[in-house]
């Protein structure tokens, strides 16, 4: 009951960002897909057919869905920033931290509600739209480029990287350091995880980077949230 109330509050507060990201991604992604369709099939490059492709890499790069993927990459970062700031910065600036923390519940429950809301938000917003695009692109007959499962996974990796950004922003928001340079130090770790993930092609290694990054940041968020003073 208490947790549900907290979760509902967190979801409601993030709702404008979640809806905004989902709608924009849906509109821009559809636009990308539709504009790109004639280019790949009798459009700008009428000679480009699976048979004429040199290798699978070329095919993959030509996939319209990978264009949407770059949009997803941007939207995941933006969403991570927005949710992180909404949950962990605004409470201090609007001075509602006392009201949140003095609930007759454990601080850990308040934090869990925030993180759960963020995960649900990422999955239901950009995650759902991305999966929808993948399903649509794989159903459609107008794209000749084959869709690989890796493309779908890569999209979810971008979404997970958005979650890493969210955790980094959370750590920075909970930090009591006076200087903004020190306060934002956690974003350095986010950057390292990011670079490691996007520069690596082996999926298992990317997943390891992600898990390590998320675990370190989660520990930091938990420690700072449970011990944060005013």
């Amino acid at each position, binding site marked *: *009951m*208490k947790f*549900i*109330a907290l979760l509902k*509050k967190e979801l*409601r*507060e993030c709702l404008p960002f979640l809806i905004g990201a989902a709608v924009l991604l849906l509109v821009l992604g559809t636009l990308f897909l539709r504009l790109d369709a004639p280019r790949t099939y009798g459009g700008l490059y009428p000679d480009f057919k699976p048979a004429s492709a040199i290798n699978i890499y070329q095919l993959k790069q030509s996939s319209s869905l990978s264009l949407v993927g770059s949009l997803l990459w941007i939207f995941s970062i933006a969403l991570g920033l927005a949710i992180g700031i909404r949950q962990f910065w605004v409470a201090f600036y*609007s*001075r*509602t931290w*006392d*009201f949140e*923390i*003095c*609930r*007759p*519940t*454990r601080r850990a429950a308040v934090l869990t509600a925030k993180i759960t809301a963020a995960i649900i938000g990422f999955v239901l917003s950009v995650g759902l739209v991305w999966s929808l695009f993948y399903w649509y692109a794989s159903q459609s007959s107008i794209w000749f480029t084959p869709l690989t499962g890796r493309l779908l996974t890569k999209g979810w990796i971008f979404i997970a990287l958005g979650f890493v950004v969210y955790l980094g922003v959370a750590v920075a928001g909970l930090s009591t350091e006076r200087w903004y340079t020190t306060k934002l130090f956690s974003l350095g770790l986010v950057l390292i995880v990011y670079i490691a993930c996007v520069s690596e092609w082996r999926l298992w290694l990317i997943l390891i980077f992600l898990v390590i990054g998320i675990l370190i940041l989660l520990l930091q968020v938990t420690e700072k949230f449970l*011990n944060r*003073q*005013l």
Partner: protein
Amino acid sequence: MADVILKTSGLTKYYGSKLAVDHLDLKIEAGSICGFVGRNGAGKTTVIKLLLGLLKPTAGSASIFGCDSQNLTPDIRQRVGYVAEGHRLIRWMTIARLEKFQRAFFPGQWDREFFAEMIDYFELSKKQKVKHLSSGQRAQVSLALTLVPHPELLIMDDPTLGLDAAIRRQFLEGMIRLIMEQGRTVLFSSHILADVERVADRLIVIDKGVLRADCTTEQFRDSVKKVRFSFDKTPPEEIDIDGYLNSRRSEKELELTLVKTTEQKIADWAQKTGAEKFDIVQTSLEDQFIDYTAPQKRSRLFQWEKD
């Protein structure tokens, strides 16, 4: 003897090198209504935040219902109502939504009728959004949300701060009406003595983080005296009377604030210094408090000094 609800032992808090609370020892028994007073920056809010576990003490400890403030369990928090300074509530919620949110944390304790009655009493509508409420209305909603679960201990941090006289009066009347419930313990911080006087039966005075007085309002009133001595010459420079706190002087008059001094001692000092006469000036509790907590240098601000 009544149970001790709230206790601090040697409670000390430093912000960097600045001392905010200095070895505070306090005990509040069940059923007492305590006015926690001090000037701005005296350390009232810090003490309250230490009590609620929102700040960690540098030294000493604080406990509520026998539970250390740093480890307050949800069960203990359920028994404590806290009205924070500034009444910061979740801005996007309506009063009805805020009620629903708050209700979830007090299963079986929430009195819907009482809440509706309070909202009605304060002439508010449940449909109103917090962001559209004035600071006075926010204070009223905050009070309602805190009182409706019938907390055994009510801690209010300067709840009338920033409210105009009319709203303050309405707020206090609402508060008085509601804290009359048997067994409820109240710690009410303020820097406005008139507010405290209306509500509290016990006065805790804090100044620069140090406990300066802990007594009933009557005891405080009887203890702090302002005495005006008249001289036919320049008043003496050295003031060596027991209980001397501060002074204000003019050419032939000396006004002293004294604490816990008998009239006999005052008369003796008047005779010793050659004062023509002395009068005990009638002052309000507010004036007594200001005199009691006024720093020495402040009384010199308006004093003409010869080179």
